[in-house]
């Protein structure tokens, strides 16, 4: 097997002209923001009028090997003005390329090329989209809180699990099937405030790339999508303070150089004060209320010489909710230490260590007579990645990683004599991966990114492992020692993304991936509840397997002013997880025996039209899709629509910039309602009326639609101080969109039953003030 792979790889590299011939030279270095020195991820350096070029990696490093000679290179990055540089490449050299947002004059050799800084979303290959985080600020947002997880819901194939939720469903997937990475560390619960806000403070973020198809081999572990998020490194040139004051929270960011052009740091914090405000208003009613969240992003980096660089970054966040004797506390911590090493101008290496921790705890009662319920997951991971920039036509990425997972199932500690404590033992697993990926430009028109990932999952001791019979009784218990292997799963995960340039303005794309998901989130709600439980694959729970194929066509019109993309996909999911009727998610040491296994599938078509006329920018996205599950134990074994099945999903987004100081924006969405289960008849038990359900998810809540608008006003851009006000209106025409529908007895006539629709948000005006200096 390995020999075959090596042979195939070698022959393909050969096809792309392997040998480093005489008469060639390599240009390498970093692409940076001219203002702050921030490295740019995925910036492209293209030889003018050809398809030959390179893109920067996640550390902003590029490497381009060319025949010796004179070249015109176009350097571009989303949200920045593209630059043309003219070089005479006679020997290998390093060159730092700086891109600006247009306000300053660049270096003399630089000629301004076309303006690319208005695009908010950029197509970045098969099933991949890059987001311009800076531009997102101008979009109308929920309660004035800019939020990347909200904004990307305006893209085709991505929608919210329910209104206002940061829980994402990507191409029919569940929220737990998204790999959410912050500086490469996994974020297990991306939400604050029961899912209404995300944990990502946009002020501290630099780059977001979303993969929903043809996922590259370096990613693994989640079945539906990857959200690869990077924090800013911090301003390398000068100290800067920025922040904002909003209705829900306020933000403050401080960044600057440690040693100029050598290292920098950034500290960014965010906190809410809703409960304090409420107490001011009505201390009688809200005196015992605690309601809030905070988060803190920290990052520092330092270059040791030309070839080595260290990054340390961390995130901490917590939600607190309390009322009287009830308290709930939950949140994530992540930490990453990375070491970049450039062996030579072609081989780039990165070694990373991560830590990630998610915890939740309830505390009920008074001290001395209280109990605590808590659970969590903790990761320690090591990762080694290499990028080898063989020549402009071949880039090879390979690496290995291992994660030690520690799961704390929900447990109860009690200081009350009437309640025993329920201490649940931790369970452990090691998830590892080995991958190799190859990007090859076969011809000017034909590009392939393909790879293979081998994923391995070992459930390890220490612990007692149970075997269950069909009626969920324990038939056997085996005790394992520390690190003793209990159960092994592994899988081969081929990845493929092909792009063929049919015409200069038309390209065809094909993507395929297989991914194994070894961790599962058990959830009993539509909202992202903090007490949802992550469980590993074990001897009783099999890993999920996803296969997805996608086919797309991209067309650009009017000199790239209008871009149209049409993509179809089919996804098949094995070993999907649900649980038996009546199973408890909380404090259930035998949840494994109550897990049900089924299959799911999703298929759909996504249309994306993005255009630009003068200072007007916008897009229309439309998704037509179907998602279904089939479990032997549910719906009498017949397939049923998934709750997140969305037949139609439309988003229209527009922004208009007036004289660089005013930005008007709007977004309108339309979505088919969630599939839900309603009763078909009723009967009586114990004198109570009980609903009789005949099919799972056989009904729909009504479709939702909503218009949001915002206007941003900036002060005159002086050098020192910049500030802007954003006024927004959420749900302009006050449409009461259904969140849920409940059946209950009519209050005046108990013999009658009413269907009651709950809507969460009517019209909400917001104001936010942002500043920086």
């Amino acid at each position, binding site marked *: 097997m390995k020999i075959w792979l090596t042979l195939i790889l070698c022959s393909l590299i050969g096809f792309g002209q392997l040998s480093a011939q005489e008469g060639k030279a390599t240009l390498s270095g970093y692409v940076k923001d001219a203002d702050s020195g921030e490295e740019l991820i995925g910036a492209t350096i293209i030889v003018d009028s050809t398809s030959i070029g390179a893109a920067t990696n996640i550390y902003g490093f590029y490497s381009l090997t060319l025949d010796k000679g004179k070249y015109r290179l176009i350097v571009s990055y989303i949200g920045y003005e593209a630059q043309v540089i003219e070089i005479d490449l006679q020997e290998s050299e390093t060159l730092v390329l700086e891109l600006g947002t247009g306000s300053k004059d660049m270096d003399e050799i630089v000629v301004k090329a076309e303006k690319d800084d208005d695009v908010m979303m950029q197509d970045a290959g098969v099933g991949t989209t890059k987001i311009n985080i800076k531009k997102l600020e101008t979009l109308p947002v929920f309660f004035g809180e800019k939020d990347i997880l909200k904004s990307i819901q305006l893209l085709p194939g991505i929608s919210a699990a329910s209104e206002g939720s940061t829980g994402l469903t990507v191409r029919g997937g569940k929220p737990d099937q998204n790999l959410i990475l912050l500086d490469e560390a996994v974020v297990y619960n991306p939400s604050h405030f029961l899912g209404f806000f995300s944990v990502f403070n946009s002020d501290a973020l630099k780059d977001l790339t979303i993969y929903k198809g043809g996922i590259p081999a370096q990613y693994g572990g989640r079945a539906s999508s990857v959200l690869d998020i990077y924090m800013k490194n911090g301003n390398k040139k000068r100290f800067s303070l920025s922040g904002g004051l909003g*209705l829900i929270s306020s933000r403050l960011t401080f960044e600057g150089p440690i040693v100029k052009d050598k290292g920098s740091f950034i500290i960014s914090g965010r906190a809410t004060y*809703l409960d304090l*405000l*409420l107490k*001011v*208003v009505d201390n009688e009613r809200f005196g015992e209320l605690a309601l809030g969240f905070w988060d803190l992003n920290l990052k520092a980096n330092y270059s040791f010489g030309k070839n080595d660089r260290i990054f340390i970054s961390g995130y901490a966040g917590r939600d607190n909710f309390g009322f*009287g*004797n009830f308290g709930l506390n939950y949140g994530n911590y992540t930490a990453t230490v990375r070491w970049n090493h450039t062996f030579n101008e072609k081989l780039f290496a990165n070694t990373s260590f991560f830590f990630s921790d998610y915890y939740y705890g309830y505390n009920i009662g*008074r001290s001395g007579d209280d109990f605590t319920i808590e659970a969590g997951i903790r990761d320690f991971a090591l990762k080694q990645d290499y990028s080898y920039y063989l020549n402009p036509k071949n880039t090879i990425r390979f690496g290995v990683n291992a994660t030690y997972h520690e799961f704390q199932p929900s447990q109860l500690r009690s200081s009350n*004599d*009437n*309640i*025993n*404590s329920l201490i649940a033992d931790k369970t452990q697993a090691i998830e590892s991966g080995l991958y190799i990926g190859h990007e090859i430009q076969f011809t000017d028109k034909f590009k392939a990114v393909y790879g293979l990932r081998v994923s391995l999952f070992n459930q390890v001791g220490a612990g007692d492992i149970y075997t269950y019979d069909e009626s969920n009784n324990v038939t056997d218990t085996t005790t394992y020692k520390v690190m003793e292997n209990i159960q092994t799963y592994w899988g081969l995960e081929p990845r493929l993304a092909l792009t063929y340039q049919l015409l200069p303005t038309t390209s065809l794309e094909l993507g395929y991936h297989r991914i194994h998901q070894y961790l599962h989130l058990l959830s*009993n*709600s*539509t909202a992202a*509840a903090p007490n949802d439980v992550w469980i590993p694959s074990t001897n009783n729970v099999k890993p999920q397997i996803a296969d997805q194929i996608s086919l797309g066509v991209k067309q650009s019109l009017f000199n790239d002013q209008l871009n149209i993309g049409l993509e179809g996909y089919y996804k098949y999911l094995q070993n999907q997880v649900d649980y038996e*009727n*009546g199973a408890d998610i909380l*404090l259930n040491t035998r949840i494994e025996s109550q897990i049900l296994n089924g299959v799911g599938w999703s298929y759909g078509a996504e249309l994306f039209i993005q255009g630009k006329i003068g200072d007007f920018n916008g897009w229309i996205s439309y998704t037509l899709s179907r998602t279904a599950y089939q479990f032997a134990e549910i719906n009498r074994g017949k397939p049923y629509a998934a*709750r997140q099945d969305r037949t139609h999903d439309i988003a229209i987004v527009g922004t208009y910039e007036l004289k660089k100081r005013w930005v008007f924006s709007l977004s309108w969405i339309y979505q088919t309602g969630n599939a839900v*289960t*309603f*009763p*078909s*008849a*009723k*009967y*009586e*038990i*114990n*004198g109570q009326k*009980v*609903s*009789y*359900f*005949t099919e799972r*998810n056989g*009904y729909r809540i*009504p479709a939702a639609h909503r218009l949001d608008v915002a206007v941003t006003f900036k002060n005159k851009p002086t050098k020192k101080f910049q500030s802007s006000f954003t006024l927004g209106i959420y749900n302009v025409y006050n449409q*009461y969109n*259904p969140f*849920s529908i*409940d059946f*209950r007895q009519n209050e005046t*006539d108990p013999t*009658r*039953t009413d*269907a*009651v*629709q*709950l*809507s969460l*948000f*009517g*019209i*909400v*005006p*917001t104001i936010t003030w942002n500043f920086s200096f």
Partner: protein
Amino acid sequence: MNFNIIISLLALYILTTSCEKIIDVDLNEANPAPVFEAILENDSTCVVTASLTSSYYDNSTSPAITNATMTISDQLGNSETLSHEGDGVYRGSSILGIIGNTYTLDINIDGELYSASSTILPTTSIDSCSIQDRGSLFGGGGAPGPPQYFVYVNYTDPGNLTNFYAIQTTYYDSVEVGYTTDYRIADDELSNGISTRSFTTFNSFKQGDTLRIELASIDPATHLYFKTLQDALAGGGFASAAPANPTTNFSEGALGYFGAWSKDEIEFIIP
């Protein structure tokens, strides 16, 4: 200062922007299915109420099944046929529930057969009842007027078994003007082998109110039925999992349960 007030008002608005309204939802009609509520208590005879499901919005009571043949039998081979008393109520006359026995109920309706079994487990005795000031539970405040109390039932859980309980609380409800019975279930996952207390009802009482509390020791299948019934009654509302029919111990096609149990009871006057 003005700024603060504006912000506060906005924050209040945010919390109160949600809204409920009554809408029309067309529901499919289902074929009527039989529903059995079958109980056999220790030292009592078996009682079964049989009815059919009815249209969801229909406000008449469920139609009774009057043509069923029902047989109760134990694992020793004793059996009897229940007699129909009218209105779908069937009752036995000779077989009494005995602790330790497993009973099977066979029902025949026009040739369609349904069957369920249940075991009577040993009684757990009620030790006493206790009360808790409703105000103190949520840290002060509370409603004006005389203090209101929540009622707990106290018992000692046997340590050698996994126990499941059904707690039935009957009291005079001055709002409904009549007697009301509330049902709750409990298990010993967090109280195995200790003296414990279980909550009886979310209703609260004042001094002098009288309650009758029954503590039934039920088998796992009956417990699962009551648990899933509780979930179903809670409804598929705000942010909950997809609702499902309660897990019956009857064979395919029937709704309801057959529960055989032993119980202890107590009458309690709020001191």
